[in-house]
């Protein structure tokens, strides 16, 4: 991206302030915010003040990341040999910051959150910092630590809705399954370390390449898939997701579905990117098939089970499982183009899924239930919310010209041709994905039908708080703009994917 205005800006002040820590400057801002949040709450006793402070810091961090990407060459670099700021990590940081922004905005007025405001925002910010560290990591250990930061914060966030026993239950389940996954991941990483003697991702590649197919490597990689499969809610590591999304406060569910899940993908991309380059070896082929099988099963199970859900949060949970299946196509195909598709879908998914969750949150705050039948006649009671929901759901189903269609198009087509050459191995996967998105229309249309065509018992107008309308409007704009004019973002994504792959030594 070359906007002359930003290019010419003198940003040496950033280097002066942050010194050698420039590559992790955006994270530092967020960590500062996380530390200060409880303090501000103690001083002001106002939840909203903390929320606004958090928003401010997220925006600062976002602007910082933005200008750092725009002036690329001046800021790309490494910190302590552990974290790097490059086009890929910069873009992913922006993604996570966007998620945090939407989540905080949606939490400002949320009724399910009675107290613990200071802690709540600190947890969100802490988790966001963790996700950003994962995006910047160039070392297995830092990825692991980053993911753990997010996980531990999320357990607490889920359980924070103290007046609801479902939340405590969900938090507990989430933590137990999370602990198992952590153990698996750590086991996998130690296997890799045992075989290769290094934790630096770029150094692991050549060693594995030299070794070829050995059981320790296979077990190591599969354990890591399982560990992060939990984060992305891939079948069969998905079972926690519906319970947790249903039990947690709705903004938290949105955060998990859009932020934490994307982090899982970033971690998988980082670790398996090595294989992208080695894609012709036996090992890579085996891993590709593994991912393909997970992808196909994940999207199919997610979509089919979603059909029979009656609670909208559970339905959205299964729909997110299905979306994870789509994104997994990139790991099966393992091409730069597929990776672009996946990253693009990650971006569009943030807006459509977070938007849907924010609407659910807004309606819960306004006194509506969580069941789909509670949405009957919503088009009359809250026309904007209903229309936005329609856009989000149709975008999730992949109906043009909304964002979900454009990104699915790129993603699915990547299964058929790989960087200019036709590959026939994955056509079946593209077909499974297309069929799945046709199936998904069924349960999305059901909600639209409830909102627009059926009539409910109550005809009263629903009063939606202004901040929700604003948040939803932001997501609507995202869903439309990314659908109609995806060019600039795709260009950035292309650059990021290219950069990530070009750095792999062989």
């Amino acid at each position: 991206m070359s906007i002359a205005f930003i290019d010419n800006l003198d940003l040496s002040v950033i280097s002066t302030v942050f010194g050698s820590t420039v590559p992790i400057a955006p994270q530092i801002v967020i960590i500062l915010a996380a530390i200060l949040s409880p303090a501000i709450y103690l001083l002001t006793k106002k939840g909203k003040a903390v929320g606004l402070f958090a928003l401010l810091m997220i925006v600062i961090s976002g602007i910082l990341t933005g200008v750092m990407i725009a002036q690329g060459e001046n800021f790309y670099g490494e910190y302590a040999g552990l974290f790097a700021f490059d086009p890929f990590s910069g873009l992913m940081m922006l993604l996570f910051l966007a998620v945090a922004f939407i989540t905080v905005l949606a939490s400002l007025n949320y009724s399910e959150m009675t107290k613990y405001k200071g802690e709540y925002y600190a947890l969100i910010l802490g988790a966001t910092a963790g996700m950003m560290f994962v995006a910047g990591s160039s070392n297995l250990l830092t990825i692991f630590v980053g993911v753990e930061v997010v996980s531990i914060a999320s357990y607490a966030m889920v359980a924070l809705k103290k007046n609801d026993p479902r939340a405590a239950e969900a938090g507990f389940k989430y933590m137990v399954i999370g602990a198992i996954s952590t153990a698996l991941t750590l086991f996998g990483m130690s296997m890799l370390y045992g075989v290769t003697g290094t934790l630096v991702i770029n150094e692991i590649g050549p060693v594995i390449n030299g070794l070829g197919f050995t059981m320790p490597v296979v077990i190591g990689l599969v354990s890591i898939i399982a560990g992060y499969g939990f984060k992305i809610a891939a079948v069969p590591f998905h079972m926690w997701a519906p319970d947790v999304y249903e039990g947690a406060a709705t903004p938290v569910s949105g955060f998990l579905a859009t932020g934490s899940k994307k982090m899982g993908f970033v971690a998988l991309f980082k670790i398996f990117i090595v294989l992208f380059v080695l894609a012709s070896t036996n090992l890579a082929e085996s891993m590709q098939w593994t991912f393909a099988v997970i992808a196909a099963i994940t999207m199919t199970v997610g979509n089919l089970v979603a059909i029979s859900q009656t609670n909208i949060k559970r339905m959205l949970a299964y729909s997110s499982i299905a979306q994870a299946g789509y994104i997994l196509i990139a790991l099966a195909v393992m091409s730069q183009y597929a990776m672009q598709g996946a990253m693009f879908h990650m971006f569009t998914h943030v807006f459509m899924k977070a938007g849907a969750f924010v609407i659910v949150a807004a309606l819960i705050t306004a006194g509506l239930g969580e069941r789909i039948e509670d949405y009957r006649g919503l088009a009359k009671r809250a026309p904007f919310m209903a229309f936005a929901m329609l856009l989000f759901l149709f975008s999730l189903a992949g109906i043009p010209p909304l964002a979900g269609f454009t990104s699915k198009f790129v993603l699915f087509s990547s299964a058929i041709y790989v960087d200019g050459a036709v590959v026939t191995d994955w056509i079946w996967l593209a077909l499974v994905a297309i069929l799945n998105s046709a199936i998904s229309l069924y349960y999305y249309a059901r909600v639209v039908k409830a909102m627009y065509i059926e009539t409910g018992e109550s005809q009263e107008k629903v009063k939606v708080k202004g901040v929700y309308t604003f948040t939803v409007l932001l997501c609507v704009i995202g869903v439309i703009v990314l659908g109609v004019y995806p060019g600039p973002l795709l260009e950035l994504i292309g650059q990021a994917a290219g950069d990530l792959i070009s750095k792999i030594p062989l």
Partner: protein
Amino acid sequence: MMLEYVWLTPLIPLLCFVIIGFFGNKMPEGGGYVAIFGALVAFVVSLVASYEYVTGDLFAISLPFVQEMNWLTIGTYEINFGVYIDSLSCVMMLFASFISLMIFVYSVGYMGHEEKKRRRYYAEVSLFLTGMMGLVISSNYLEMFVFWEIMGLCSYLLIGFWSFKHGEGDAASQNAASAAKKAFIVTRLGDVCFMAGLFILLNEFHSLDYAIVFAQANIAAVDPTALTVATLLIFAGAVGKSAQFPLHDWLPDAMAGPTTVSALIHAATMVKGGVYLVARSFPIFVQNPDVMILVAFIGGFTAIFAASMALNNMNIKRVLAYSTLSQLGYMFLALGAGGYLMAIGMQTGNNDLIALGALGYVAGVFHMINHAFFKALLFLGSGSVIHSAGTEDMRKMGGLGKKMKITSITMLIGSLSIAGFPLLSGFWSKDLVLETALAPAQHGLGAEWTFTALFIMGIVTAFMTAFYMFRMWFMTFRGKEGEATRHAHGESPKTMTVPLIILAVFAVGSGLGILFGLSNAITESLSCTLGYLHIHTHTGMTIAEDIFTNVWTYVSIVLTLLGICLGWLMYCKKSVDPGRFNKNGESRFYRLLTKRYYFPQIYNAISWKLGYGVAKGVDYMDKEVIDGTVNGLSNAVVGTGDSLSAVQTGNLNNYAAWVYTGVIVLVAIVVAVFIVNGGI
């Protein structure tokens, strides 16, 4: 001048959609005048742009007008967004915007009592028009698909506009909501195939631009099998959208929407999208004669199949719905038969065959234009009747002709036209369709049985059409006054009757266009892509000469007149009792028709039992079988009988067990793939 601004045709209605959506409630008629204005501008722009194109240099040398800008770049593939104007897009633009304009004007009267809901109505129909205009001027398949889906979405919303139950009509589909959903999901089935077809095209051509996909050199370079598969998939998309057998069943149910919407869907937009898709894709369809013959047979079969269901239906709108299906079948028959001849001609280098094929193409497109006029007229007329009589059941009508002079006369003109009464518009195109089916036999090219079969389907349908249209007309406007007639309000307001009169003029006259070079203009679209310059050997008067020197034309005229007579005898003069033929509604065939050949049931069985059943099953598997099995296992292993109550939530242990099972399965997959690939 205007040609460069042709993108305004979808954009203006889109703006109207936004304006009405936001401010409709504050405007007179809920924004109806804005919608009319939008359609008017779209029509004027189409008219001027078409005039410029047809009189311009590009048309003279058989080239399309193309304007594109980059939309998105993915990998090495560039997807553009732009306009592609040739004679086919011109005629489509013209009739779609003109008929929409008529329908919008008519809506002011018809939807007048809808109060606040009018805003939604006018916003949605404007978006509908956007979809159709965008569809016909798109410069590539992906862009077309985007507009195609916008139309699908609008049809979904509009069919469900009245979500209360209709008292009349088939029991299977009384609910507008379920009709809307059915329309959306059934056409979606076609869309999925369409999209898969697009992937194959993109894969083969590395582009979806018409200019590239239709270039003969590019077509020659790609794998013919892949192209055949792609065309079949694209055709499946057309079958869904144009409601051809076996995806036809959503269209009769779609009658649950307001009548104006039915007119819009049947005459100007939506279902014409499928025909347009095949006509547009002609250059790739003609690469394989087998695909074309399939198109022709699907069309021919739908024509006769749908006409049979119109024979005994008592609902005035449904009769028209079945007739749309049947007429769309005609269009596919013509396109398919023409395409087959052209495909054979291209393979053998026989120019006569290519010219005959072009004639079939003309017949299909021409019938689409004429059908747009008379079907819009008939639907709006039936709307006028329903508006006045307050029912859709023809048994309760009868004798309405005295109370509604203009409606009854315009409907008579529409019925004569669709039945193919000589010199009215339907006559020209219908006989051109039949002419195409006869062509091989008449030009000594060997009368293949396939074409004989197509001709028989066509001519039998012609007889049935004349009969059921006049059954409808006599039942509604003549005979004894029905129960609803007595309470009827009389003639509809001017804003409804004026569009009827205008459309009636076109239903009489649009067919004459063929005498004045319309066929040349239409074939020019093929010349643009196929490279055979000016393939029209059948021009103006020669077509008329062909039609009137052909003995079969007179056979079809006689059959038409017989059909009309039979309708008159049975439902006006009542000297022939219809009950004699169907054992008073007890015969098996009669019931088969009323039940729509059990298609709704078949659909339900498939979608419910299979789709929902599978979903239920998977859910059951997820909850019961898998959890249950793991429970059983863990019980056996751990030896505790109360593992279920050990954890409050019941199944956390199963989740954990699944994580480990997953790991083991994944390792197994990795090793298995490795071994299969010949490792170790």
